[in-house]
């Protein structure tokens, strides 16, 4: 209770510095929040595309039904494979007639079906990496009755490169802005400690416990981080509401998962606490000598 009172007194004592610190911390985290929003939506889009990644193996016409059945069972047993769909020659022709309407006349006049039967393999989540896709295509192509296996290798690699870049940028920005926020809180708490230097010195001389002296400053750091985190959340939400309305052509964005928002605000508070602990250790802890 006293710690909270003292922490709030700290805000009253240097309101401009505290507001600046909360504002700057909030701004750092807003940029992080906006990037998180974009990354979350890019991640969702990539996930959708990833789910459509298929490895297709085209069968030679002389493949026997027993060979095909045995191969299908083997492929379904692979840990990376989610499903195996067999498309017969007739189904392939039917689909071509349906999907390629402009060539329906050509397909209608055919006496011999030129389209091959095929296997369509979908991979499980977590296995849709370029390496696994390529490896699965290689295993499929190894069957003697498979003429060719395709998986759009260039396209898959680009997709994964995009995801890696998005993750890397998110981590770099996150780390950078978190560092800025920490430095600001370190400075604010340090100023608060210096502003109360005389009181702290007297407390140390008369025998106040370290925790008694330090708690208000730790709380001030945590509250600054928390306030900055909430400010960032509010501004990010505002941007989320306003932004799609201005650009009607854009698909509606998905809001951040609750775990992200709650985790982000909590992380801001913890960051504030750690930054304050650093300042307190440097400025107050010395008077008690080595541990």
């Amino acid at each position: 209770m006293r710690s909270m009172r003292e922490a709030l007194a700290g805000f009253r004592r240097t309101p401009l510095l505290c507001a600046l610190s909360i504002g700057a911390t909030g701004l750092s985290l807003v940029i992080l929040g906006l990037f998180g929003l974009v990354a979350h939506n890019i991640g969702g889009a990539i996930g959708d595309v990833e789910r459509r990644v298929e490895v297709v193996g085209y069968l030679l016409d002389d493949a026997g039904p027993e060979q095909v059945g045995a191969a299908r069972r083997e492929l379904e047993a692979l840990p990376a494979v989610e499903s195996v769909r067999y498309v017969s020659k007739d189904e392939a022709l039917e689909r071509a007639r349906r999907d390629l309407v402009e060539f329906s006349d050509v397909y209608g006049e055919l006496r011999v079906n030129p389209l091959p039967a095929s296997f369509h393999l979908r991979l499980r989540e977590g296995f849709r990496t370029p390496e696994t896709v390529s490896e699965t295509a290689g295993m499929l192509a190894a069957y003697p009755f498979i003429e060719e296996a395709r998986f759009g290798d260039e396209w898959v690699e680009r997709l994964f490169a995009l995801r890696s870049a998005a993750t890397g940028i998110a981590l770099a920005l996150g780390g950078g802005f978190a560092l800025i926020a920490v430095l600001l809180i370190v400075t604010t708490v340090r100023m608060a400690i210096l502003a109360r230097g005389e009181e702290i010195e007297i407390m140390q001389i008369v025998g106040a416990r370290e925790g008694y002296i330090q708690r208000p400053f730790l709380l001030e750091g945590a509250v600054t981080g928390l306030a900055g985190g909430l400010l960032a959340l509010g501004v990010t939400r505002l941007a989320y509401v306003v932004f799609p309305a201005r650009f009607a052509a854009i698909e509606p964005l998905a809001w951040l998962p609750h775990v992200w928002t709650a985790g982000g605000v909590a992380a801001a508070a913890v960051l504030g606490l750690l930054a304050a602990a650093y300042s307190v250790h440097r400025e107050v802890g010395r008077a008690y000598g080595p541990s």
Partner: protein
Amino acid sequence: MISLRNVSKAYPRSGDALRGVSFRLRKGEFAFLTGPSGAGKSTVLELIHFQTRPTDGEVQVSRYNSRRVRRRDIPALRRRVGFVFQDFKLLERLTAAENVAFALEVIGTPRREIAGRVQRLLSQVGLAARASSRPSELSGGERQRVAVARALATEPRILLADEPTGNLDPDAAGGVFELFSMLNRLGTAVLMATHDADFVRRHPDIRRLELEDGRLARDSAA
């Protein structure tokens, strides 16, 4: 009660502040710590208050030893050892009573007891009538009395005073010394650092520990 055994203290920039200093101060004893500026008087007091640790040797205060003391024990030690400064170190925004109450509050005295104890402490130093005055409204001697009342808030068994009369006129200095003598008669050990040789000469019955260039040059009790 206080024991320094072959204590040396060196600072990284200024070098040796103390070299091989040894003495004991018994329970209820009064001693002057004398010597010119820079002789090491403040360093001795800081070592006894565990504001700093010896580079060599050891300091023993009651059951606390500088080699073995744990960081978390230091507040308890400081409550047994009151400290009074030349520049008073009072909080200007608080009244005399609030300055004393501040010390009581930060050591965890129950709120309901604070007002009564502040009243008693200010009466003890003869300042009950100036309880609501701010430091800027008090004379030097009165400010030092408030500082003494604050130092007594923790009921210390030892009182360290670093040039407590240095900023006072002779009358006020005499008054503060009388206060220390009275506290000593009540059982508090007092170690008072001063470079005022005349003041010390006027009290020949009090033990004198004389420092010179970081060494204990003379101990009148030896």
